[in-house]
């Protein structure tokens, strides 16, 4: 067997393994089997170790083979062609994974971080009622992450992307008995759907241009990072803009940044893995994957760079007034994600990749240690030997007072981004649909002659019914 083949097999195994865990945990829960904490932790540990070994093996085999990339082609779900020759209309919808210098390191990163998180969560969530649910969602997340990282076609990436989004939103709403987490989970879900729609449009556009969604076909020739796009500059700008919106939603770039601090509702390890480490970098990863497209279009590159830079500056300013540890960390995280995106726009692909990996490790550690904030501050004070407060320089230093005040307000209200989206996007949208609802009600009532909807009369009841009042 050649090294190339081994790399392909091991790489594919690394994708299958978390899939098995999802199926296993999911089936057991569906069939109503009560899983013990021990069983769940052991399974997840085994799966992650196995996956990690496979990925490492694939990395070694890939290095030995000397090839820049190895692909696993799962064949086409849909394949369609009409006519012959260069004018033929082709359409192919395929499953394909590629293992190259981009995907393998990020797969390794995903496995290491998910492994640490699941070891952490095994203790942290001990005796929590949602224990199995958490691990099930974590398995879905890991699967989604690995699938989207290794994806060789845009539709495969989309599948993984969706799994990541779904599990993230559900984990934000992990404590579904309180209103806050549910409202915030829903908000995140909404923004994700918006980004997904952009993603789909971008994918359709790419399909339209090249007939299929394979990255290597789209890129033309050369493995990452050396790929060169085959599409024209304007085509790249068109499809790339959609994909940039998708990435912006997923990575909480401006103007979608408002959801990031709201995502800190779940247990600490989920905040760590999603918003410190993996989830928030997924948008940047998508941009890395399509970096040949960005290179092909200078306007697109400028767009990416400036969006990244704006986000970085925005997050750096917004962080200044965050008074809770997790929000501090999440804006710190966002600052770096912005810079990574800017680096991608500038074409610094290796730097962006190294930055992404380093940042994910660092931030995960900081997130997991977030509850230590108070004792860390005391320890630092003791070490330095005085009761020193962190520098409390006033807002913006030398700027005029009015500007300082504005900056403060800007930072405190997180750049008014939520207000902006609420008032100018969500508000009109809801108003429009309320209008439709009213219209529908009118004509159904007119048709029915009279009466109201049955659902109007009944209200949800919140009392406990078990015993007498």
């Amino acid at each position, binding site marked *: 067997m050649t090294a190339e083949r081994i790399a392909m097999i091991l790489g594919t195994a690394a994708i299958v393994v978390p899939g098995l865990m999802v199926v296993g945990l999911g089936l057991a829960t569906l069939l109503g089997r009560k899983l013990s904490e021990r069983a769940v932790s052991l399974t997840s540990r085994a799966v992650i170790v196995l996956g990690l070994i496979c990925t490492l093996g694939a990395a070694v085999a890939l290095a030995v083979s000397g090839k820049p990339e190895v692909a696993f082609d799962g064949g086409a779900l849909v394949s369609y062609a009409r006519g012959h020759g260069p004018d033929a209309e082709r359409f192919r919808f395929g499953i394909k994974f590629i293992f190259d210098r981009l995907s393998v390191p990020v797969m390794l990163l995903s496995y*290491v971080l998910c492994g*640490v998180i699941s*070891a952490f969560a095994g203790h*942290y969530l*001990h*005796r929590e009622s949602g224990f199995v649910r958490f691990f099930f969602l974590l398995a879905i997340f890991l699967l989604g992450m690995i699938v989207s990282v290794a994806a060789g076609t845009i539709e495969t990436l989309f599948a993984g992307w969706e799994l990541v989004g779904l599990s993230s939103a559900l984990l934000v709403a*992990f*404590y579904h008995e309180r*209103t806050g987490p549910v409202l*915030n989970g829903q908000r995140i879900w909404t923004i994700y759907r918006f980004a997904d729609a952009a993603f789909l449009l971008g994918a359709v556009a790419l399909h339209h241009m090249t007939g299929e969604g394979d990255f290597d076909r789209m890129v033309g020739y050369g493995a990452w990072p050396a790929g060169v796009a085959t599409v024209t500059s304007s085509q790249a700008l068109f499809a790339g803009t959609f994909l940039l919106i998708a990435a912006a939603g997923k990575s909480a770039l401006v103007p979608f940044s408002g959801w990031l*601090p709201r995502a*800190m509702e779940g247990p*600490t390890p989920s905040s760590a893995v999603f918003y410190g480490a993996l989830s928030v970098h997924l948008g940047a990863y998508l941009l890395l994957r399509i970096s040949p497209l960005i290179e092909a279009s200078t306007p697109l590159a400028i767009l990416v760079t400036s969006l990244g830079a704006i986000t970085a*500056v925005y997050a*750096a300013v917004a962080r*200044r*007034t965050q*008074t*809770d540890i*997790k*929000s*501090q960390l999440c804006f710190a995280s966002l*600052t*770096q994600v912005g810079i990574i995106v800017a680096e991608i726009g500038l074409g610094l692909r290796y730097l962006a990749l190294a930055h992404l990996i*380093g940042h*994910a*490790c*660092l*931030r*995960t550690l900081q997130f*997991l*240690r977030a*509850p*230590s*904030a*108070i004792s860390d501050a005391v*320890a630092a*004070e*003791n*070490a*330095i030997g*005085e009761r020193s*407060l962190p*520098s409390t320089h*006033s*807002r913006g230093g030398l700027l005029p007072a009015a500007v300082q005040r*504005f900056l*403060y*307000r800007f*930072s*405190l209200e997180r750049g008014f981004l939520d*207000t*902006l989206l*609420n008032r100018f996007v969500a508000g009109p949208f809801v108003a429009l649909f309320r209008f439709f609802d009213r219209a529908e009600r009118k004509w159904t009532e007119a048709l029915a002659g009279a009466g109201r909807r049955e659902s109007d009369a009944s209200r949800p009841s919140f*009392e*406990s*019914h*078990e*015993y*007498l009042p």
Partner: protein
Amino acid sequence: MTAPFPVDAELHLGRSDALIARERVALHDGSESPERAAAARDARREELKRAIEHAAHYLPSQGPIGVFIHHNTLHAFEHLPFHGGVEEGARVYGCEPYLPERRYREFLASGRIDPEEVEEILDRELRGSAEEVVATLVPRRDLRSAMLLRPLYGGTDKELRWFVAESDALIRFRDDVEPSLRSRLVDRTRRWAMRSLASDGAVADASDVKASRALREQIEQFTRRYGSDAESWSGPTWNAFALQAVWRACREGVHGAPHAPTTSHRMIRHRDLLHEATGVNADQPVGELLIRFCGAFLDQGVAAWHPPAREEGFLASFIATYGSAGVLCEAWRKPLAKVLRRWKREGLTSLDAVQESLDDLGVMPHERDDFLRATALALRGWAGMVVQVEQRHSEVARPIPPGSFEEYLAVRLLLDRLSLAYFARRELGYDGPLADLNATLRKKIGKPRHATVEQRAFVVFQLAQVFGWSAEQLAGLSRSEWFELLDEIESFGGVERRRLLHTAYEEQYFRKTLDAIGEPTLKRQADRARNHPRPSFQAVFCIDEREESFRRRLEETTPACETFGAAGFFCVPIYYRGAGDADFSALCPAVMKPKHWVTEDVVPRLQQDFARRRKARRLFGQATRSVSSNSHNLFLGAVLSAGFGWIAALPLTTRVLFPRLTARLRQHASVLIRHPNETFLHLERGDCSPDAHPPGLGFQPSEMADIVERMLRDMGLVRNFARLVLFVGHGAGSVNNPHQSAYNCGACGGGRGGPNARSFAAMANDPRVRETLRSRGVTIPDDTQFVGGFHDTTADSVEFSDVDQLPAEHQSEFAEAERRFARVSQLNAQERCRRFVSAPLDLTPEEALVHVENRAEDLSQVRPEAGHATNAVTFVGRRARTRGLYMDRRCFLTSYDPAIDDDNATIVGRILGAVVPVCAGINLEYYFSFVDPYGYGCATKLPHNVSGFLGVMDGAASDLRTGLPWQMVEIHEPMRSIFIVETTEASIRKVMIRDENVRRAIENEWIRFVLLHPQTGALTHYQAGEFVLHRKSGRVLETFKTSYHVFRGQRDHLDYALIASGLLPEEFGAWSPAPETQHAGARS
């Protein structure tokens, strides 16, 4: 979308007619001079100020979380009797007074609650009226006891209809109906039915006509369904027939019965009514804004920027932040900037602003106090923190000006108005003045819904089965009898039932405890102890119930030793600064304010080394901090994370996967920068006054003598001193835990008691102190040496200090004692581990110690230890009264010898003065955090998020969560602490007259108070003003060889037991051997 928002002018002028009329009256009263008007205004302002202070009293009094002090969550209700207090508290806070009824039923099923005790309590409470027969059917006691002991189900109207129609509720009897009763009921129904079939119209009165018509209908229905005629129906058919007849009779009976006036949830704020009417929560946007601003305003050093004009107070800062025009903001608060600017222009004080809002909202004077309280409680965590930071301005890093709470309330009320106006308009199209909003909303809500016929009938239906009331019987009841029955059932409501069940729940443990303390063996032991030989060593621990097991195991392994319990600051209240600390912290109970400062310094010989290390540590500290803060920055963060971020993977994986190993490594590495271990305390002061700086540090010898004398007398150690007396303070070390301080010593104000023990030992060793003591009648032999130590209750390690100063002839003895302590650490860890589900039950002592050490260092561990969970008893008396008793780490043990107290009960008075608030505070905080983990506690730790170094929020933005997290209280049993005090009634009466707090706690029964007579050993407990003799149940305590034999293989709460090896031996030589083999607790 919606029409333009009402402008500020309308909002301000929008007053109710009633108010305007009232003002007009005031204006036209005429005769008042301007001075008198001004005086009246001042008086009104003063009154409002008082009302606001009063409202603040109800807020949580938990301060910044770095120092966690346990206190009664319902401190504001301590003037009421316990049950009244918890019920009133539950009403005010919207929380639960007791556990859910479901839990009590589980306890009934498991035997944790005795049904007999329930009946006894019922009898006691009903007194004479227990035997009164309700509606000719059943004595009141039986009815209530059935309602307590049998689960009666209820439900919504629709749910019940479904249940009756679709389930077998009308086909089969409840499982808990006795067969004889069941067959009698069926039999009577059958006879009634057959009789009715046979007779034709020869009936007496109208109700009979109705009943028999219904019966016939039912017979026909059954005949249709089951074919054959009634005579040949099978048993099950008759069962179903009887049940349906009863159901019909119940429905018929409750029809039209009057309803008791509902005392459901009172809606005080406009927001409550709006929520009820529309389902919209007007507090939500207000909360979001306030949480963010309060966080910024109160922040103690997390954020880099602080709000403008922070020094000028809450209101000024709020105006400076939100008063600017032309900034994009959420629709509901568009008018905010304008109002704020008007306030600023008019120079409104916060009281005026509150008054303006009250007027605008149409709050009547008689509603004002309740309204202000409810408003303050709407975001109680943050509001409470405003009060706390305001009051503790000398303790916090960044104080806020006084009056901040009033200003908070002013802002809150304004935001409430804006939000209400916005939502009333959006949801209801309401444009009128807010003062009239309530009336509109009330109209919309309509009358409260009463229980429906089905709901009421279903209860009677279930009781009818339990008691075997037949349909004929029920149909025969008159209207007034029906009403009586319903009234009787409905007046015995859920809270009332839970109160009774809770009382029974407490009662069982109370009885067991008193039985155990009354055990004759212990009495004999105490009598014998008066003249026992010199012990090999004496060890003094904190009264903390976590030390109970440590002391017990120590006595088991070294029968010749003696242990004592005293509040863990050992009468040494100090501000202390360790060699490695930046600042002083108070080590004493929260109610005290130290007058002395003590610092730790490295011995002169190592000063140079110390200075070097301190420099290194400082550099390291600065580096760490700048890395961690710069990693959040734009540019340096980029460099750090891109260049070196991957290095973080190393600590990330090792700390999570191998916590103990990593901790060891870190500890070894830290030797380079930690201060040397050889240190001394600046404990002695010259003639100057106490101060935080050198000549003022420490105590004068006379002060030391007072402290030592008081401590020794308090715990009754005034004679028979051993050669070694070890004082062991305690604290807890855990990582990644915002509530860390809550695990520390309560008597040291949430600090670690090591320095207090060390200081005490040094004082007691001072020859001048001993000289003074001798002159006062306490003679400490010259060969007695005191040593201070520290017990880490999480990792179960014990360390002693100043050991090098022990005379040579004590060294080997001390080494032996230290060995015993080390062994007991392992044994204690083993006993603790039985409570951790994640620790296997068969751990050896050695493995158990490793396990607890891991817990202390594990970042992912949310239960580093159990804390005070399961605490239930406080014992004040001689150890000989409890020695050898297995108390399962549930008892605070305070040493006190009544024999050396004076006639005035001085000693017991001062002990109780300290112990009652501390132990009851701990106990009640655990009680409430367990009973309502969301309302009173801070629920699960997992989503907690440290905010402003002040406290924790749930997730991204929530109210500041006070109380204890669920992980801390999870294994607790919510019961009031049982105080058992070895003294006489006469003495305690004197104390109660002197000490208001103690009297209130006893009389209002926030603690269960029991007296143990020092001579006779009789137990009397306080009940409604008098002390009632406890009758022993006659149960004999089980005896086990060692503690290990009691707890091995057990996870849950254990009963009291006697430990043979723990009892005071009849006679002992010095250092009788530690029977090591029987304690091994090896896997067997």
